[in-house]
């Protein structure tokens, strides 16, 4: 009876360890894929170029983000119209 109990505990313990490891590996894989497939769209590039220019013009981060956001919005609206 004792043997059976300990084997059951061991089985559950090893199982959870193996499951936990699988999850961890999967998470890392997702991260790697993100790093590899990261690509800036045309609108992303417009956003960043505007953001950079606004910062050069001495706008604050918040203002620069809003200015770049407005440019991004125009780009996205154009994309929708073209499609």
């Amino acid at each position, binding site marked *: 009876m004792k043997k059976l109990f300990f084997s059951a505990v061991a089985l559950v313990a090893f199982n959870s360890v193996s499951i936990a490891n699988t999850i961890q590996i999967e998470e890392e894989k997702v991260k790697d894929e993100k790093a590899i497939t*990261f*690509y*800036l769209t045309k609108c*992303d*590039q417009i*956003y*960043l*170029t505007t*953001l*950079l*220019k606004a*910062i050069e*013009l*001495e*706008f*604050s*981060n*918040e*203002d*620069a*983000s*809003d*200015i*770049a*956001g*407005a440019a*991004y*919005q125009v780009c996205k609206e154009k994309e929708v119209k073209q499609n």
Partner: protein
Amino acid sequence: MNEFSQTVNLLFMKKTIKYFIIFYCAVCFSQKKTLTVDYTLYIAENIPEKNSHKLEILKDIDLKNEKFFFKLYINDSISYFIDNNGISSSNLSTKLAINKTKYSTPIFFVNNTFYFKNNPSFIFFDRNEFLIKKERINNWEITSESKIIDGRICYKATTKDYYYHNKGKKIDYEITAWFCPELPFRFGPVYYNNLPGLIIEISYLDIKLVATSLKYELDERKIVKPTGNNIVTIDEYNSKLTDKMAEMFEELEKQNGKK
């Protein structure tokens, strides 16, 4: 006999008044302290801008003067400060005008700390990525200078705060607040409270916020507790923002270089 009945009547009256006072105080103190305040934004005139690009962007901000309103909801020990739909507007000069207050998303105050979400205009962070926390100011200097605002005597208090401009550059600024002890609410607009009375007027940088309406009522549904996946301090958030911007600029350069 007549004298006796008079004494009994007097005793009865005294008791009634005593119980009435006790009852009145009990009702007053057991009530929730709720208040809804409207604040109007005033913007100082812009210093003439030499750069033509910058001038083009900033030209309409002055037109927004006195056109923006914020609401402060107070419920006992919590407060919620929100713009009247200005920040979600697609109009750029509206957003830039509101940015002058250093407000970016609704601000929730509880347990001596302000909580608010990251600015959704920075598209490389998810909308719910961060819940930013900012400690309240504890070092107000209360002066004896006073003025009457809407029939209430209000006192002047000053302090300092800071914001991150860009590239991690920190800018200090002075704040002047007028609070009214007659209104026993230790709250105020944006990130400013902790004075012995409601802040009726506050000025810093080139803006002024003035309370234009007070209502001793509250629609609790209007208070929305902000959420975020990572709780960070304002300093940590700015460091993450600066790093992310640098990373994205590098990525842009890489992709442009490949072409």
